[in-house]
């Protein structure tokens, strides 16, 4: 049934839930964001058993069922290799601000040098014909960093052979 103007008052109410959280992110994420903010470093975590390097850091290696601590954190290169990409072309409500984010924007999945898992982030290219799997990418950091994932503004394609 179509939404009839005259019926809206009868048939629907509107509300917006404001549900503020104070969310514990764990010691590894704290270290990750500290290093990002203070030193422009991207950290991962390395399993002491299988040696797999997780990016972003995870607290448990699912394969080995072994805990990783801050001592198991390793620095990753800000550079990596593109494994896949998409260009987003629809309006997206930014959960951080509640406002609409401008589109189109590029989104990439890549492996940072030194990491064994994929990392995902924005890429500053909206022409998908210019993106190719295997291209080298590099993180671009904010000058005024706040200690959140937005401190990496985006990744950019760089000319460099692996």
């Amino acid at each position, binding site marked *: 049934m179509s939404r009839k103007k005259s019926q809206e008052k009868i048939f629907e109410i509107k509300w917006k839930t404001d549900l503020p959280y104070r969310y514990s992110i764990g010691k590894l994420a704290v270290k990750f964001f500290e290093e990002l903010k203070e030193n422009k470093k991207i950290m991962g975590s390395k399993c002491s058993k299988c040696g797999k390097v997780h990016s972003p850091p995870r607290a448990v290696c699912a394969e080995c069922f072994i805990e990783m601590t801050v001592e198991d954190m390793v620095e990753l290169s800000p550079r990596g290799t593109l494994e*896949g990409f998409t*260009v987003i072309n629809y309006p997206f409500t930014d*959960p951080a601000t509640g406002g609409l984010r401008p589109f189109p924007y590029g989104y990439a999945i890549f492996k940072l040098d030194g990491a064994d898992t994929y990392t995902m982030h924005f890429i500053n290219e909206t022409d998908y014909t210019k993106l190719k799997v295997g291209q080298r990418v590099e993180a671009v950091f904010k000058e005024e960093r706040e200690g*959140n994932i937005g401190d990496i503004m985006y990744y950019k394609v760089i000319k460099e052979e692996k």
Partner: protein
Amino acid sequence: MTEIGKVAIVGVAQTKYEEDKIDQTYSELVFEVVKKLHNDLGITNDDVGCVITSSNDFNDGRTIANMAIQDAVGSVRKAESRVSGDGAFAFMYGAMRILSESFDTVMVVSHCKCSEVSQYLVNNTIFDPYYQRHLGLDQISSAGLMANMYMNKYGVTEEQAAMVVVKNRKNALNNPYAHLREEISINDVLNSKMMAYPLKELDFPPFSDGAVAMLLAKEDVAKKMTDTPIWFKGYGNCTDAYYLGNRNMTDLIGLELAAKEAYRMAGVNNPRENLDVCEVSESFSVHELMIYEALGLCDKGEGGKFIESGETEMNGSTPVNPSGGVLSSNPTMANGLIRVAEIALQLQGKADKRQVPNAKTGLAYGMNGICSQGNCVLIFGGEN
């Protein structure tokens, strides 16, 4: 304990799936299907032993949202529980209440009103709130990344992906419950607005409102209730890594493992020969090609060629989604239970214009989360 193969679906009921059912609350949608099922089977709520429902709190706009449908589903002062996830998992929960001999009959119901909240925002909350959520990942952007990686690895084309949409939309013409009932062409898909390269608007499903219900019963009760009980033959469940970066993004490993387990239990040795009909939860066009591969209907990387072969069309050897699939109707949380309901109708010979002739064994695939994260494969047979 009751053996697998001794639990039956005795009847199913569905609403019509539509974009915006503003004249019905989700509780009313549930009542519509439950009451219809009571009437069809000639039973009352007293004949229902236990109630299992499935929905999602964020979609329902409240927590413990099963209480919002309590009267309509008939669960007041009854054994009741709810799966916060896809309806296929609710089927499994319901079947277990009979397998454990706790109940003779179980009502399984799933509903969703996608129209009531932004599905992009709901899907974004799947992701962790510090590394990923602020970067805007949702079901559409994740699908774009997965499709790009899969197509790049195996050389699958956008035309082959579009063929999935054309097939499912054509099938939906035969399904009176389907939301989108309009035939479209490959060019319509290719020329639709780019959403998340390489996927266009028509590579994605609509958002739908609707509900589905079914009654399960143990063997002797089932045979009294209906002449066409549909027997539950096999089940496999596997959850792939939650973090997309920890997955193989080009093959649906979790679904492969779930299917393998379900096939073992049901004695399916050659899925293409043994399965007469499949209903799968395809979240986007390319996803269905990947599902063919994971279910073993074709080899890895061959999904594109397999759709071209026509084997998954209505007149092919293994029709997939005669109902029109998720690409035609998408009340998200109910999708898996709709797949089960459609397989039941096929095996009962009650699928009307979308009937696959002589369907004896069928597969239903339900999915939780993004890009085949949680996988539930169910096999059914029409004869015991």
